[in-house]
């Protein structure tokens, strides 16, 4: 018996140990560094300051952050608008076909996003597939400048992150009890009313989860902005990377990262509230 409980303690202890060492402590260091000043010789000085956070509010940085949030936000909205009907169709497709259709969504989900970005370059470059097709169709006379534009970054984000929206929506839609929709119909609700009053509220946690899984990575994907957007760095991720690797301003980069985590916390809270509200409504 004594052996047993030491086995148990070993498992629990080791899990606590790695989680503290590799998740909690690094995060505390990040948080700490964000309140320090940039060092002269060393990486950081020991002077405590809130200047980094104030600098995030300065006009240039703030407008960059707003642009980035706008870009990521519209990308998330577009993924939601395109992904919801798709997940709906997927959830309703025949049981035989569904595993295959789902696998087809998961393959891009798991394919290296750099490879997928590269594939987009093949589509968008001046002599790429899109321009060649448009020229051949006689719709344009000269190749369109698609690469190195905000539009390209935007297409890149939606293209890369769409599966991250579809999968949680699909899971949420699959969990909707069809009997509830039947009950709605029996009570005289039309399809639209059923959808708005039953399906959407029931899938709200999926909607928030999907939005979170698109919005947060979209803020950080610096390589998409690099490859498709050219020299202009448009995302918070570019800013953070540059602070670390170009300007060697670790505290500033840390402050921007902490801010991103706060955004995550806010979205997680929303998700939690939506799930809980749903749980309560189901009980009533």
């Amino acid at each position, binding site marked *: 018996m004594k*052996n*047993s*409980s030491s*086995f148990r303690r070993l*498992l629990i202890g080791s*899990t*606590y140990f*790695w989680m503290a060492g*590799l*998740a*909690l*402590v690094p995060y505390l260091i*990040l948080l700490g*560094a964000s309140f320090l000043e940039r060092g002269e010789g060393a990486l950081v000085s020991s002077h405590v300051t809130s200047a980094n956070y104030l600098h995030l509010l300065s006009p240039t940085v703030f407008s960059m952050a707003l642009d980035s949030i706008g870009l990521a936000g519209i990308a998330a909205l577009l993924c939601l608008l395109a992904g919801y*009907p*798709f997940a709906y*169709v*997927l959830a*309703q497709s025949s049981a035989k076909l569904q*595993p295959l259709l789902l*696998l*087809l*969504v*998961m*393959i891009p989900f*798991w*394919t290296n*996003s*750099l*490879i*997928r970005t*590269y*594939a987009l370059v*093949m*589509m968008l*470059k001046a002599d790429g*597939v899109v321009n060649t097709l448009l020229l051949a169709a006689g719709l344009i006379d000269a190749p369109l400048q698609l690469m190195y534009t905000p539009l390209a970054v935007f297409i890149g984000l939606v*293209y890369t992150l*769409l*599966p991250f929206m579809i999968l949680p929506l699909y899971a949420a839609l699959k969990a909707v009890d069809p009997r509830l929709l039947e009950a709605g119909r029996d009570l005289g609700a039309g399809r639209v009313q059923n959808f708005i009053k039953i399906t959407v509220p029931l899938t709200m946690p999926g909607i928030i989860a999907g939005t979170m899984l698109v919005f*947060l*990575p979209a*803020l*950080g*994907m*610096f*390589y998409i902005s690099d*490859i498709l957007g050219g020299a202009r760095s448009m995302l918070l*991720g570019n800013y*953070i*990377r540059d602070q*670390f690797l170009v300007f060697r301003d*670790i505290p500033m*980069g*840390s402050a921007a*990262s902490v801010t*991103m*985590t706060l955004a*995550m916390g806010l979205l*997680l809270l929303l998700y939690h509230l939506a799930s809980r509200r749903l749980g309560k409504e189901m009980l009533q």
Partner: protein
Amino acid sequence: MSRWLKRLYAAVVYGFLYLPLVIVAIFSFNSSKYSLAWKGFTLDWYAKLWQNTGLMSAAVNSLIIAACAATLATLLGTVAAFILHQYRFPGRRVLFGGLFVMMMSPDIVIAISLLLLFLALALPLGFSTLLLAHTVLCVPFVATTVFSRFHGFQTDIVDAAKDLGAGEYQVFRHIVLPLTAPAVIGGWLLSFTLSLDDVIISFFTTGPDFEVLPLRIYSMVRLGIKPDVNALCVVMMGITITALVLSRTLLKEKK
């Protein structure tokens, strides 16, 4: 929505997701070097790829790191799922929440915080730092995969074993592991692809001594497109699809 409209819409979305990948695959077999025009079938780019030692060594590094990180993450993730399911202990909910937050954290935040840890410990960036970072990335996914499998089997089996005198270790070794083996292997394969997919965490946590494929592709893409990159992308996609199909099959088996 009418049936045809649904099918059309699904086809458009699949087209959007797959067309660029299919184009890359087609052009990896095109003998024309620069233009889009089809100049005949060739395997030259695959041969070139094979001879490109820098690229091949980066590919091998990526596979090594993916295999090692997946193994370590599977070990830690399975243990985490086991204790969360089996035991009630102080801080259990915190541990749960911690794994969830880790899973949801943006890659760049994970990357930066680990980079700071490695800097603080004065660890040189390379194989070991990348291994730790990828393990952190993968563990929550293994833990949730295995945990959901635990919910599938009855706890009375465990109770019965305990009544018959089995200790905690024996329960773990002879009941829990065999029953969750498909989920454990599935978790390993998911971790493997997750590690191969990663760009951002590798970017910050490895050094010049240990170059991995995504970083190599990154610099190649920035310098311009060459057909052997197409071939490389096709090979990588092949590995990802194989691992994914295998893991799906394993996870479905028990139903």
